[in-house]
């Protein structure tokens, strides 16, 4: 067996981490924007079946099937029609999935805003959208941060599954190094795990830091 600890191997892994991070950033952004919009519609738009119904169906389906299935369906399904790269397919599929989870987080956060807050804004003469923007969203954002930390960690780990449609990311590259070296399984996976751990920890620390900066007296009691 040849030792897998070489500069080129380490660089190979790091680039895999870069791929994972690229997918993560993109999917979280899609999830944030689409999920945020879905949550706003669920909480503030009229309760008509043709508005709320499709959103609910979307949520049940997307959160109800395994990630691998979602990735396969997207990539192999779409590539009949579109010339889509595995990378893009991963981002879109995981982005859509994240939007369903983030919609739940933001919906819950918006519903946690005491109704009296918006009543007061309304009574003062804020238009409804302006009241939501100025009062509800700042509060909801604070409520959402904690659960969102969980979503961050969850999606980071989900990126390791995109190898099934041919994206060479971190975990997949670790496997490649192991098969090339003919062994050293635990060592290589330990190093890989460490890389995920560092990203996760950094992300969480940043999010907790943000939460601490945004906290106001009475925040916990208000929940």
């Amino acid at each position, binding site marked *: 067996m040849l030792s897998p600890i070489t500069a080129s191997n380490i660089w190979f892994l790091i680039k895999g981490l870069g791929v994972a991070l690229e997918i993560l950033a993109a999917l979280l952004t899609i999830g944030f924007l689409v999920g945020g919009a879905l949550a706003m519609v669920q909480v503030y738009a009229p309760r008509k079946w043709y508005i709320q119904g499709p959103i609910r169906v979307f949520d049940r389906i997307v959160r109800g099937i395994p990630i691998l299935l979602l990735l396969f369906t997207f990539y192999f399904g779409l590539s009949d029609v579109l010339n889509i790269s595995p990378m893009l397919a991963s981002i879109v599929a995981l982005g859509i999935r994240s939007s369903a989870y983030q919609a739940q987080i933001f919906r819950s956060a918006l519903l946690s805003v*005491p109704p*009296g*807050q918006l*009543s*007061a*804004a*309304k*009574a*003062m*003469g*804020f*238009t409804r959208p*302006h009241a939501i923007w*100025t*009062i509800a969203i*700042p*509060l909801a954002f*604070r409520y959402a941060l904690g659960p969102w930390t969980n979503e961050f960690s969850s999606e980071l780990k989900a990126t390791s599954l995109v190898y099934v449609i041919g994206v060479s990311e971190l975990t997949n590259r670790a496997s490649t190094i192991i098969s090339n070296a003919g062994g050293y399984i635990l060592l290589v996976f330990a190093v890989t795990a460490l890389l995920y751990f560092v990203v996760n920890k950094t992300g969480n620390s940043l999010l907790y830091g943000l939460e601490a900066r945004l906290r*106001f*007296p*009475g*925040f916990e*009691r*208000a929940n």
Partner: protein
Amino acid sequence: MTDVMAATDITKSFGSDQVLRGISMSLKKGETKVLLGPSGSGKSTFLRCINRLTLPDSGRVTLSGVEVTTDNETNMRRRIGFVFQEFNLFMHLTALDNVRVSLVKIKKMPKAEATAKARAVLEKVGLAQKEKSYPAELSGGQQQRVSIARALAMDPELILFDEPTSALDPELTQEVVQVMADLSAEGMTMLVVSHEMGFARAAADELVFMENGVVVETGPPEKLFTAPEAERTRSFLRLLSDGEPAQGPVPTSGARDG
């Protein structure tokens, strides 16, 4: 002179429950009226119909002669102050920001001007030194006073008070009642739903007694307290007066300590 506020034949039902059966009332500039009545009589619902926080089923509300409708309700609300029973201060904003936010965001006032004005009204309710405090750091009485300051900041033509002291511990009601009495003495047009008999006797120009969605009797406080025309008025007021102090708040001028 046009009434500041005139409501005509306001009705409202919630499902099968008819809460308001045709309420009419008006306020002239500088008048303070207190709306009294048992729970469920529709007092708060009526108040909320004036600024359309609750939509009336029928009837008409005018502000300085102009009807309040769905089309202009947002603008109308900017001229009407509303003080809630549960205060409803914005939790994530300091006292100063709570008072200032409407000036900056709605009136688009420059920040310096808005800050000066906000500080002035906080001073008026005796809470200048609490400007950096968040609502959770303030007592109920202080929160309600900030809430009144927040309403005052917009220079309203009329302030509606929805049971402003009902959620307060008894020892905290006096500080709020005092602010309200001073405001009334200074000429603010106020419609107050309250059980504070001291305030009603001392500050109200007229009392309106409501029961079961209708106005039973109106009149100056002393008349209703000593020689009401309706028996129901008499029995309700007797109920409330038991245990109430005989002397109400005396309007003073100048700031009080918080």
